[in-house]
């Protein structure tokens, strides 16, 4: 019990500090120099941030879409066919989940350089689909664990073509898994730094990249404010999705 409390305290400690510092008018957060909303103002008036945010959302949405399609397809194939091909398939899907980001980052960078592809939003898009695919596949595959295959046979028995059976029976069943996988993919994409850093071009900034550059070169205090906003935003998203989930029941 004490372990749990200690761990939770450990988890939230730095966050509390950050929230506090976001209101601290001291530039480097060494000591309290008075309450201010200055950093928040700076945050909202920074055009670069909005540009980065737009890129981030664009990429997250598009990569999630493609990852969901590929990942769901993968989960179906892994579920239905159990052959040697699938063993290889399974390994290929699972490996990205356990490998360090940096490997995927550098390997994709080399790949694009070797093919002389310009680095930019497109390469970031491809990278994000690549790592999200496995996550979506895993989540949707989990949904297949309790799946009763005979409902598909029942649909066919009642006159449905494969196409109709998939649309009217399979997809509705998988929807919670697909939604969860999509949400996961979206979050991972929003959040990704290392891989994006490796495959991005001079003109393609995402929010995490921008945050990093601010950390390195800019005013660190604004980041505090940004952090608070992001924390709030995450919280709202989580609470509302929980409410939505409960509402459905």
């Amino acid at each position, binding site marked *: 019990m004490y372990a749990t409390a200690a761990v939770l305290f450990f988890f939230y400690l730095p966050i509390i500090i950050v929230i506090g510092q976001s209101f601290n008018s001291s530039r480097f957060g060494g000591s309290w120099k008075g309450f201010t909303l200055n950093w928040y103002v700076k945050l909202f008036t920074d055009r670069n941030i909005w540009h980065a945010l737009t890129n981030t959302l664009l990429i997250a949405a598009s990569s999630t879409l493609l990852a969901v399609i590929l990942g769901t397809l993968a989960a179906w194939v892994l579920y239905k066919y159990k052959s040697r091909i699938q063993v290889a398939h399974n390994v290929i899907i699972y490996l990205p989940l356990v490998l360090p980001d940096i490997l995927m980052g550098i390997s994709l960078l080399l790949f694009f350089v070797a093919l002389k592809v310009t680095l930019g939003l497109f390469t970031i898009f491809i990278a994000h689909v690549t790592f999200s695919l496995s996550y979506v596949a895993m989540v949707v595959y989990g949904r297949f664990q309790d799946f009763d295959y005979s*409902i598909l046979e029942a*649909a066919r*028995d*009642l*006159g449905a073509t494969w196409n109709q059976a998939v649309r009217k029976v399979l997809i509705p069943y998988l929807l919670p898994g697909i939604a969860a996988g999509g949400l996961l993919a979206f979050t991972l994409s929003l959040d990704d730094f290392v891989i994006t850093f490796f495959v991005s071009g001079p003109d393609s900034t995402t929010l995490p990249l921008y945050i990093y550059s601010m950390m390195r070169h800019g005013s660190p205090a604004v980041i505090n404010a940004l952090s608070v906003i992001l924390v709030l935003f995450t919280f709202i998203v989580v609470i509302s999705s929980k409410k939505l989930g409960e509402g459905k029941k």
Partner: protein
Amino acid sequence: MSDFLVFDGVSKSFGSVKVLDNVCLTIKKGDIFSLLGPSGCGKTTLLRICAGFEEPDSGRVILEGHDITRLAPNRRSVNTVFQNYALFPNLSVYENIAFGLRLKKIDPRQIRREVDSFLELIQLTDHADKMPDKLSGGQKQRVAIARALINKPEILLLDEPLAALDLKLRQRMLVDLDNIHDEVGITFLYVTHDQSEAMSLSDEIAVMNNGVIEQTGTPTQIYEAPRTSFVAAFIGDTNFFEGDVVSVKEPYSMLNVDGFTSVEAYNDKMIKTGERVYLSIRPEKFTITINRPETTERTNMVQGTVEEIIYMGYHTKYWIRVNEYLISVKRMHDRYMLDEKMLTWGDPVWLSWHADYCYMLEQYNLRDEALLTIPDEEIPDESGSNDTADETDSNDTQGADEAEARP
């Protein structure tokens, strides 16, 4: 009546396991026809071939003159009631039943009329908007049946539909199924491992074992005139005897059964002197008495000792020791038993039976003796009416032993 559904030489293997071996069956229109057999006998595979979920390696399936062997399941005029119902979890009871009709793009008002009438048939009108996970097993079963029947198939396939229900519900559903069949008049092809289901419901039964049809006939034919030792032992209970023909006096013959006695048996099999025959005599065909019965023509009798007794209320099962044989005998209590002197262990008794009660088997296999109940292994059935120890689990799902591979 024309041959409505014909299986012509159907064979199927999964890997190295031959699940169906040259199966030939003819089913008449309007019948309730059962495929009865233990797990792994191939009955579910045969059903799935009829539904279109498997294709036979050889042979044909012919429905009303049309060869449907290679036809896709959604193009057949055949509907299935699945063992675990397979109701669509995201659709309500109403929408589940309406599913097939919606696919055919039938006018919604017409759909409503038909679904409502079927809801009435299965007595679930008030549950139309419920989701499947809120239904009980019996209700799900009825929805599955309605969903299949509403499409007016030529033949309805039922895959062990009552296997997952408890006893009382099963008995009620049997009656319901029978009523529905009478109402709707569609041919049923019913798969089960439960003989009481098959016997009580069917117009005809095919008994299957190891991919082969052992016998086809009405329930009475199957019970009273089993063709093989498997059928005799799988359905109900029986006693097997082995004997040599000593003399033939049509239509009876005299057999010498080693270690037992001379037995006169009804002969419908065209046997000759010197041949070896196998007899099946059901336990209820014996009369058990303390005193020697009168010697009359065609009556066989033998002396023995009571070795085991199981009192079951309206009948008693005895095992009588006669030399090497342990003979199972059932005696109905058709009078007030408290006034009777009850037999007890060790009592000397006489067994007698008419020659007509012995039945000669066409095929005998020693290993089928394993299906018989002997005293140590007696497992009393819940209903008290079925005494054969089921060598299968009652909730066997879709013939797991039939090495099903996904299509």
